[in-house]
């Protein structure tokens, strides 16, 4: 373990944050495709596991 703090590059972090958000939007598109081709019974069972967790 080190007592030294990491070097924080805010520009780099902002870029990572933006990239993460873009990738989340792409995930939503994939998820919508999945919902459209999957029976309500199946997707809602998965959603129930997530929400009731």
């Amino acid at each position: 373990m080190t007592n030294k703090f990491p070097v924080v590059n805010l520009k780099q972090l902002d870029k990572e944050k933006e990239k993460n958000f873009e990738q989340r939007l792409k995930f939503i598109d994939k998820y919508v495709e999945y919902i459209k081709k999957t029976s309500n019974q199946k997707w809602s069972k998965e959603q129930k596991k997530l929400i009731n967790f």
Partner: protein
Amino acid sequence: MNNKIILEKELNDLDLFTLDFVNILNKLAIKYVIVSGYVAILFGRSRGSEDVDLIIENMDYSKFSEFWTELHTKFECILVDDPKMAYDDYFKSKDRLRFAKIDTFIPNMEIKTPATDIENWVLANSIEVNLNKNKLFISSFELQIAYKLYLGSEKDIEDARYLYKLFEDRLDQNKLSEFINLLEVKNKLERYLL
């Protein structure tokens, strides 16, 4: 878009909580509309929520008191105990009241009366959903998408994109454009949804 949707799904705890609450509103013939995140969650969005937002019609104290009594068989208000205080200090002032199941804190139902033209519009133009043979009223998708873009957090934009992509073929594009213009979110539509 057709103003009635039939949805059969395996109900999760948030669905059951919402149905318990709106069944009381339905029983008392109180007009309401569910807005915000739960609209996307109802149709499968992969996230939970600590609250469900609901806009309900104005009513006098006598009706509110009846509503309060019926509600308190299953729910309790987490902000105030006294119905007169709830009515005078929150409901009449168009402030939000929060209700949770008795002896719990989350999830909770956040209710308010319309304070803006947009809220009056959404209440008057709701979509009826038949969820496993239970009736509930939700916001127009076109307004919901535009409003989520207006709110603008990452979660809101993700909700907007989810509803847009899921109902892409069924949306009234003229109505959507109108709300996009009214809320001045054309740049966000182009950046995040198209």
